[in-house]
């Protein structure tokens, strides 16, 4: 029995499935980092300009990590949708 080689479209669909799964797990890891790896609040008696700069940078880190997580989740959803579209085309 001859086994037909998968078409390019089928290859892309398989790759998109794999990508969606990997992106989903990476999004979960990044979310976990945001929850558990971010340092706790600094000492309460530390204030002044250095403390203000610290707070600003920490907020930027939080925003950056959240943006990365959200984009990863979004990319995963797009990949799943693209795979489904390719499958529906037969």
């Amino acid at each position, binding site marked *: 029995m001859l086994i037909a080689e998968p078409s390019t479209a089928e290859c892309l669909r398989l790759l998109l499935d794999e990508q969606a799964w990997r992106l989903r797990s990476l999004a979960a890891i990044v979310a976990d980092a945001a929850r558990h790896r971010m340092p706790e609040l600094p000492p309460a008696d*530390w204030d002044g300009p250095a403390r203000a700069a610290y707070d600003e940078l920490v907020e930027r880190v939080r925003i*950056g*990590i959240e943006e990365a997580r959200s984009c990863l989740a979004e990319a995963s959803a*797009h990949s799943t949708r*693209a795979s489904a579209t390719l499958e529906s085309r037969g």
Partner: protein
Amino acid sequence: MADELVVSGPNAVSVTTSALLEQSARFWLLSAELDDYRGRLASLNRVIGDGILGAVDAPRSAVLAEAAIDTALGALLRARDDCRRLGFGLRNAAGGYEFADRFAARMGQELAAGLGYLAGVAVPHLLAMAMPGLLVMGGIGAAVFASLSPEGRSRLGSTLGGWLRNNNAALNDPGFVEAVRYSVMAADDAGAGLGRVAPIVGRVVGDEGLGLVGVDTSAAVVAGAAGALGLARESPVTVAPRSSVTGVPEAGGVRDRAERIPDEPDQIRIDRISARGGPDRFEVYIAGTAELSVSGDDEPWDMTSNLVAMGGGSAGSYRAVEEAMRLAGIDSASPVTLTGYSQGGLIAAQLAASGDYAVNGLVTLGAPAGQVAVPHDIPYLALEHSNDLVPALGGTFASSEPVVVRRQLFDGPPPPGDFVLPAHRLSNYLETATLIDRSSDPRIEATLRRLQHPAHGTVTSTVYLAHRVTAPDIAP
């Protein structure tokens, strides 16, 4: 009650640099993790390229997925860079605060020395002016005290103690404690002023200079004066083992060691650790002051020992520990780790400084041992509550380089009125010891590693009790 620890070298720091360094380390770790995620995402991004997307007329969502991955890569890069900035910044901030505080401490000591000298010069004049009034007041006070019955005097003592306990907030204020530390350090300068020694000579020989005179000189003068009045006189001591038990676990950290400091009436505990393939090791635990009097008792852990030890003399408690160590089989080659609380910490530091023992670790809790010249190669951890008056009486760490861990108690409600100096209680130091064991500060971790021994063995723990040999004991 704050759980924050301030870690420093011999000089105090007033911001929580330990916490800043810990934060710095955590941001470095997070930046490494974000870098790893970014690398994994970049690899994933290379699998589906523009070629394959164009070849099959890929759906729009596949292109949107690629765009979202690019945005995620950019966000991870920015977050990683910000984490690195935070890691750098926090480390530099901690170093800067330490430098500034060391500078402020040095300036404070210089200022206190100058004021002390001026006070020494002015005291004779002030005394001359105030003498008539002082004599009248003193005479009235002495007459009233003399007229009291023994019960009345006892009542007066307990009333005074009760008043101090109920009004102990000032005694437990970190500012007051720091002022006492500087005053103690300035006592030799006041003596120089009193003796009309040229200021520059006083500074050169004092603890701001060569350190030929300092807190120990002042304490020796006080001990000498008390001795002249028939008080604070040293005596021989006897030591005997009270109980011994084998098979106890080895001390694992600072809390373990602090818990092994004996309770009254015992003063010394010595753990002998016998392991195969090496000499026996010893852990010596020394208790704090048990008796607040300077005369008449057979307790060597008294104020006489405190005064004599701080003056650099041979205190009864010091000789008692030496004798207990001899009885335990400790010689000049036996590896010994010393742990002491309050007066016990002072004695432990002096034993380490004596050069008579192979001391491989020293832990002091609330000890007035600032002036003891402990060799710098001995791992030395000094715990102090910044509102504990007792360690401040030893001045600053001018001749040794311990890792000083400070913690402030009672930074919220006022201290409880059960004790005059609640910040000096061993129970509070036990809590601080727990925090130290949990700390990830690199200086604490490095010192704790040096206090630990890889080879485990059987532990035999012996408790010793010492007594002063009083005059009737000596008389035939």
